[in-house]
């Protein structure tokens, strides 16, 4: 089959006849993701100020080993290699990190924003070579569903943390932090359970889905979340960072938690 002979080829980087602000969405993604990455990295390496009262920062949950009372298996184990830096967040954050890195929505967004592939629709690219997700390294994006499977328990722990955030030393109570952790879990739930891979696994894989009523119903629910996947992705990214910041500021004494009840 003959490759069509084209008139328009080898455009300059950024060449386009578009006259709208096509650079604005990728620039916003670039800034939004960069700010988050810098903050999350900084926060994860701190190994301090990640709890306050019944609150546990979502970056540090589940806390497998650590110094706080939330640690599941006690303090940093003796067998932990000494040359490796330690922070409870580092033991767990790779799961949500790789989950988001391989998320279909984020992929499409950061290929544009960070790699200009393409910079925006119908705008010329800086490189001629293109491998796509067909060969290494990007073929590894196909591992998304593994990180999805690992994210179920992580989400369950965060949900448990949110429940525990209402248990203060003097009994049941509601603090602003409890509400923030709860909102965060809801937003993360909308993101994780609206995942494209989840939608496929829960029902999309079947061509005769309507013959399986339970899966069909679940597929419809997941599709409903999935339709707004981008919004869930951004709102949960913001909430998870904000929840950490809130706990951190309370713990550092910069901010006083507002005890509503």
């Amino acid at each position, binding site marked *: 089959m003959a490759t*069509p002979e084209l*008139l328009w080829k080898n455009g300059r980087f950024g060449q386009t006849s578009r006259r709208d602000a096509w650079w604005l969405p990728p620039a916003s993604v670039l800034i939004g993701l960069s700010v988050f990455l810098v903050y999350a990295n900084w926060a994860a390496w701190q190994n301090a100020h990640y709890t306050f009262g019944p609150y546990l920062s979502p970056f540090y949950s589940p806390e497998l080993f650590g110094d706080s009372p939330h640690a599941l298996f006690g303090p940093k184990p003796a067998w932990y290699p000494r040359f490796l830096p330690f922070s409870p967040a580092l033991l767990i954050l790779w799961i949500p990190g790789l989950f988001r890195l391989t998320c279909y929505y984020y992929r499409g967004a950061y290929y544009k924003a960070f790699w200009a592939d393409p910079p925006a629709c*119908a705008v010329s690219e800086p490189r001629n070579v293109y491998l796509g997700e067909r060969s290494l390294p990007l073929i590894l994006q196909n591992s998304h569903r593994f990180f999805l499977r690992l994210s179920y328990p992580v989400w369950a722990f965060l949900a448990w943390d949110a429940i525990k955030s209402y248990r203060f030393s003097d009994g049941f109570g509601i603090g602003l932090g409890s509400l923030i952790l709860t909102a965060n879990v809801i937003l993360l739930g909308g993101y994780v359970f609206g995942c494209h891979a989840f939608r496929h696994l829960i029902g999309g894989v079947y061509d005769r889905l309507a*013959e399986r009523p339970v899966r069909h119903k679940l597929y419809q629910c997941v599709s409903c979340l999935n339709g707004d996947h981008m919004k869930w992705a951004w709102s949960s990214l913001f909430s998870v960072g904000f929840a950490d910041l809130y706990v951190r500021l309370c713990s550092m004494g910069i901010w006083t938690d507002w005890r509503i009840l």
Partner: protein
Amino acid sequence: MARPALFRIWRGNPEGGAFQDFKTEVDAGMVVLDAVHRIQAAQAPDLAVRWNCKAGKCGSCSAEINGMPRLMCMTRMGQLNLDMPVVIEPMHAFPLIRDLVTDVSWNFQVKKKIKKFKPRTPDAPDGTWRMRQADVDRVQEFRKCIECFLCQDVCHVLREHRKYDEFIGPRYFVYTAALEMHPLDTESRIAGLKNDHGVGYCNITTCCRQVCPESITITENAIIPLKERVVDEYFDPFRKLLRIIR
């Protein structure tokens, strides 16, 4: 609200060409195709433009308006900033015939490469089948396609990287999805998708979905589910193992 507007229209043939400016009266209810026809009638009788239905249903009048692939008959003057010239170009991803007309026959060749519909044996003795409405609804979306090829035009894998031999493009992922997810179909197109049709080249940047005049959710409802089916087959040993055990 009649007002003058400037149109900057590409004129040329496969050897080359240039933009030519035309001034004409427009009003808010008009579409770009109306303006092009007005220019053709009064100023440039040899201006080549393809159209048919003027109702967004035949997929003939695809072009690039102010840099974005669109149907000329569905783009209203009111949607455009008329203080600047309206730039109209033929689709970039296909060979030019003349002016605004391109040769889209590559697409029809691609379609032939996709395995045909293969229904299971009929469910009833009279040779008919039974399907659930919900299952048919799922593939119905894909059948709205009018083959305007705007999605093919905008896709950077074709437009920019020219993988015409290894990549079938979003239109044909939609077509494959319609067959592959059909409740009666028994054929498998997964190996073809991965090896010959280049589904892995798509980097889900959603430009195809953004330009589709039929609002088909190309990326999320067709391409990603197909990518997931490729993962089932080639990249998910757990699932494979589970299937063997069951």
